[in-house]
């Protein structure tokens, strides 16, 4: 248990140490690359901004991710159960996912002018629903027919079969995709926060660091984003343990 906590902490310390040494050995000025020792003062100087902006980023990311879970699961169910829907929707989904989302920022900000919260959530959602839809779809379409037959032979309804068999059986794939989507959603949120004029959130803080030539602040924002990403990732792991812990065969 101790090593479970100590190992990753040690790894982070080693990483920060190597970073510090790299900057020190090359004698880089902090406008080229800030070193870890520059970061605590930057955090301290803007600590209130970090809390308010961090909260902005976090809640909009989580909101976008929750939309992605709902919509992604729905699309996954449709392509998982219907072959026609699968054939029809896959090219659209793949095509949509292949579009670099940065190119959509001006599009959605023109459609929903001034709706900063909404646009940010929308982008977080658009960038993160694809892995969920695909994994739920594959999980449902690859369900062995025998699993269905044990309940179908007893006259169980489609909904009962979905609830008792298909849904729980798909949970491990779903959580695997959710881990990818959780980190993707941050990218979506920050894209809008950085690009939008007068944006809010950590992305906007990053942008203001850039505008003001405050390079330690920019690096501090990156670390704060990484921290939030890790928090959300472990929140997903925590949910996975509760709802799909049975799939972990090395556990206990």
């Amino acid at each position, binding site marked *: 248990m101790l090593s479970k906590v100590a190992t990753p902490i040690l790894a982070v310390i080693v990483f920060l140490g190597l970073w510090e040494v790299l900057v020190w050995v090359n004698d880089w000025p902090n406008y080229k690359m800030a070193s870890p020792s520059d970061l605590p003062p930057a955090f301290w100087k803007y600590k209130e901004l970090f809390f308010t902006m961090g909260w902005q980023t976090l809640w909009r990311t989580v909101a976008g991710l929750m939309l992605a879970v709902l919509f992604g699961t729905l699309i996954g169910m449709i392509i998982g159960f219907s072959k026609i829907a699968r054939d029809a929707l896959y090219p659209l989904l793949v095509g949509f996912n292949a579009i670099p989302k940065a190119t959509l920022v001006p599009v959605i900000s023109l459609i929903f002018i001034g709706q900063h919260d909404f646009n940010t959530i929308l982008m977080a959602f658009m960038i993160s629903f694809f892995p969920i839809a695909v994994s739920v779809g594959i999980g449902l379409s690859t369900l062995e027919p*025998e699993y269905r*037959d*044990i309940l179908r*032979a*007893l*006259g169980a309804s489609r909904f009962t079969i979905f609830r*008792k*068999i298909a849904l729980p059986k798909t949970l491990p794939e779903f959580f695997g995709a959710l881990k990818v989507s959780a980190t993707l959603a941050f990218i979506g949120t920050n894209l809008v926060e950085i690009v939008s004029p007068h944006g809010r959130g950590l992305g906007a803080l990053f942008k203001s660091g850039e505008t003001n030539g405050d390079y330690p602040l920019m690096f501090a924002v990156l670390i704060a984003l990484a921290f939030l990403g890790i928090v959300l990732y472990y929140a997903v792991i925590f949910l996975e343990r509760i709802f799909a812990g*049975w799939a972990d065969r090395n556990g206990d």
Partner: protein
Amino acid sequence: MAAFYIKGKIIENLIEIKGVSHAYETATGPLPVLDGLDVTVPAGTFAAVVGPSGCGKSTLTKLVAGLMKPDAGEVWLHGEQVKGPRKTVGMAFQNPVLLEWRTILENVILPLEIVAPSMPKADRVARALELLNMVGLIGFEHKRPSELSGGMRQRASLCRSLVHKPDVLILDEPFGALDAFTREDLWQTMRDLRRAEPFTAVLITHDLRESVFLGDQVIVLSGRPARTQYVMNVDLPEDRVLDILFTPQAAGMLHILRDQIKIAQGRNVVETQ
């Protein structure tokens, strides 16, 4: 309804398959798998169905379970034509298909959640434990399926197929993936379950010894498209032990069945020494 005499008693036919034909749609046109199949299984008896690979045996189980409708012909259970799934059917497959997120006990209870939703939980548990006890899985009821051996998983699967006291048990090669010794253990488990809980069974198998040990009749299907090629009444005592397979009587039956399988495969019966 047709009636049969077995050991002096009148027995109704529980399963009647009359002239059933079925074909699957494939990319290269319809693929007929069953062609005028006739099977009758008297109540309380055990019918073993053997035949060459891919001759449509699994299709037969789906028709009896009401999971599929035949293109032609009729399937009757209890004097009623099968039009869809029924709660009185139990199924077990070669793959035990246990749900990994449930314990063994919860897996066995599953059919009761569908068939008897109002049954108190304590009664469900008691019923499941009764069966788990019969197959020697007491002490494993709170384990996950992945913690059990293949043979134990298949025992649990048999319990699940019987937990709601079905009158028809459909077994699609349930012992096919097990090693020879485990398989023989499970034959005996099956025999004991039958003694404890009467049911009518259709067993699909590739193992002729299994068909003779467990069956009251052995039905040989022809190659695809399958029809009933040969029916053997297994005239062995009800309480069979494994040694019975080494008696001249059983050896004679196995010999006949082997010849029938060769005919079904389209090979010559006369063997060159």
